[in-house]
């Protein structure tokens, strides 16, 4: 990877200026934030968009017949347009806003799981899912008699595609719900192949794109999948908003998840009727300010461009893997061919919690634990790892600081 090319295409110094928090120091040391996979920092444009909404035009949305409400509705609904464009959705009404990815997957597990799948059918997940893409399907299994099948992960941390295909053989699988990028291993799963195999066996496909959408351009029509979920706070947007994209004809077949204001067409005690999609799935006052913030985040990401972001992160990841390989006692989990900027590792002399705390003493923020992926940890006989993850603002120098920090931790524990 030619660093010079990147420097031209991607001026990380300028990008860092967009994020007020990066000027912070921790214990007198410059902040080295390497936990973007848990939640990304927010650029000034996102902060400003939310502030501006609250200071100049805030009101509740939909059905307000006055100026501010109309303008706020437009601003909120513009987030739907931006999201549809970001994912190349066919139709803006295919974009359903939820509270986060977890809310999106639960919506699907209820509305598609209980509403469309029939007892006796099966759902396939993989061995590298986040708890948010495991537990809702377990709850569906226990409540609705759906079988839960798990596609195994290879030692390299990739999806075992033969085993995956075998799980679909009997034609009982109604839905495949698989991560598009592991939040532990960084592995990007072969989405197109997954869809081809699943569709060939009559199964629909949902991708958990919580991590993937931060690193790769997502085109749901090119992927040809049926549902795609992600979460705003990891894509430089605010907390409190997530996205479920679904094919319109599927959304229309699904019963609503939550009932209440905004999702109805008419209400009487005997019977209520539902609004058209996507509103059918959005009960109550929506996350208005968060939608407005998310729109700003999407615009921000689009301005930088996925090409530049992916190249920058590929360069960071390559650098990090090379440098970590040079530290005695560091073991990186997973060696997938196709991977994004998330790296889990262990250190021989120290528990990952001690590693994280001692890096924090040096101003370096990494995450440690099971990363909400206990079954994957168990697959690799681990309780926890430390994890460094990268965003648009991450620098090569920060990776060097991490490596130096790890060397110090190891010496300290010697």
């Amino acid at each position, binding site marked *: 990877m030619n660093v010079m090319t990147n420097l031209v295409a991607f001026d990380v110094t300028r990008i860092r200026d967009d994020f007020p928090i990066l000027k912070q120091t921790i214990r007198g040391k410059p902040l080295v934030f390497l936990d973007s996979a848990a939640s990304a920092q927010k650029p000034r444009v996102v902060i400003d968009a939310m502030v501006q909404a609250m200071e100049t035009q805030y009101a509740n949305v939909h059905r307000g017949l006055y*100026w501010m409400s109309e303008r706020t509705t437009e601003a909120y609904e513009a987030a739907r347009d931006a999201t549809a464009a970001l994912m190349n959705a066919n139709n803006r009404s295919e974009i359903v806003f939820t509270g986060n990815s977890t809310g999106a997957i639960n919506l699907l597990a209820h509305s598609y799981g209980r509403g469309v799948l029939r007892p006796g059918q099966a759902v396939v997940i993989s061995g590298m899912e986040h708890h948010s893409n495991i537990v809702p399907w377990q709850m569906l299994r226990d409540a609705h008699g759906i079988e839960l099948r798990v596609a195994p992960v290879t030692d390299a941390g990739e999806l075992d595609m033969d085993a995956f295909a075998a799980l679909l053989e009997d034609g009982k699988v109604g839905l495949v719900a698989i991560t598009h990028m592991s939040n532990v291993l960084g592995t990007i799963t072969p989405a197109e192949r997954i869809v081809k195999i699943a569709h060939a066996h009559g199964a629909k496909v949902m991708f958990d794109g919580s991590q993937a959408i931060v690193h790769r351009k997502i085109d749901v029509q090119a992927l040809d999948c049926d549902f795609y979920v992600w979460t705003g706070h990891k894509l430089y947007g605010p907390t409190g908003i997530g996205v479920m994209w679904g094919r319109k004809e599927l959304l229309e077949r699904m019963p609503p998840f939550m009932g209440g204001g905004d999702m109805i067409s008419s209400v009487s005690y005997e019977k209520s009727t539902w609004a058209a999609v996507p509103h059918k799935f959005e009960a109550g006052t929506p996350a208005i300010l968060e939608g407005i913030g998310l729109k700003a985040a999407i615009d921000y990401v689009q301005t930088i461009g996925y090409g530049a972001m992916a190249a920058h992160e590929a360069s960071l990841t390559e650098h990090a893997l090379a440098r970590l390989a040079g530290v005695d006692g560091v073991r990186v989990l997973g060696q997938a061919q196709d991977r994004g900027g998330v790296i889990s590792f262990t250190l021989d002399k120290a528990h990952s919690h001690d590693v994280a705390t001692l890096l924090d003493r040096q101003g370096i923020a990494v995450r440690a634990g099971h990363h909400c992926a206990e079954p994957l940890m168990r697959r690799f006989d681990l309780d926890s790892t430390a994890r460094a993850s990268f965003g648009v603002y991450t620098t090569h120098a920060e990776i060097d600081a991490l490596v130096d920090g790890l060397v110090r931790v190891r010496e300290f524990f010697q």
Partner: protein
Amino acid sequence: MSPSDSFDDLRDLYQEVILDHGRKPRHAIRLEEFDATAKGDNPMCGDRVQVWVKFADDGIGRVGFEARGCAISVASADLMAETVQGRTKTDTRALFAAFRDMARTGTCQACDPSLAEPIERLAPLSGVHEYPSRVKCATLPWHALIAALDGAKEASSE
């Protein structure tokens, strides 16, 4: 309020013609003889309209309606009835498309010149574009009319 108080601020949206047609609609009658009828219903705001059509030759002879709703929806129904009278069905559909465009955006940029005159008559309603949630008030009677032309009983909600 002093008697000299002008209503300019109100009138820029609710032009005299809207007030007039809203207050005293000329076509707010259930036709005794008709060829088609359909209802429109906006459950979100409770507006309800039924439209009756009597055809003449291959065009629209006469339109009558009953509406329950705001001044804008009543005025829009009445202006519609007045404007489509004597037009072909094809023309009427084209006019609806143009009108909807105008109601949403304030102008009808892509309008066919042949529609200039009827669009001009409907233009007082163009101000609703500032209030996206009221656009449906203006278009609801049209949806019912088109449903009637299609032989449907009810306008499908947008």
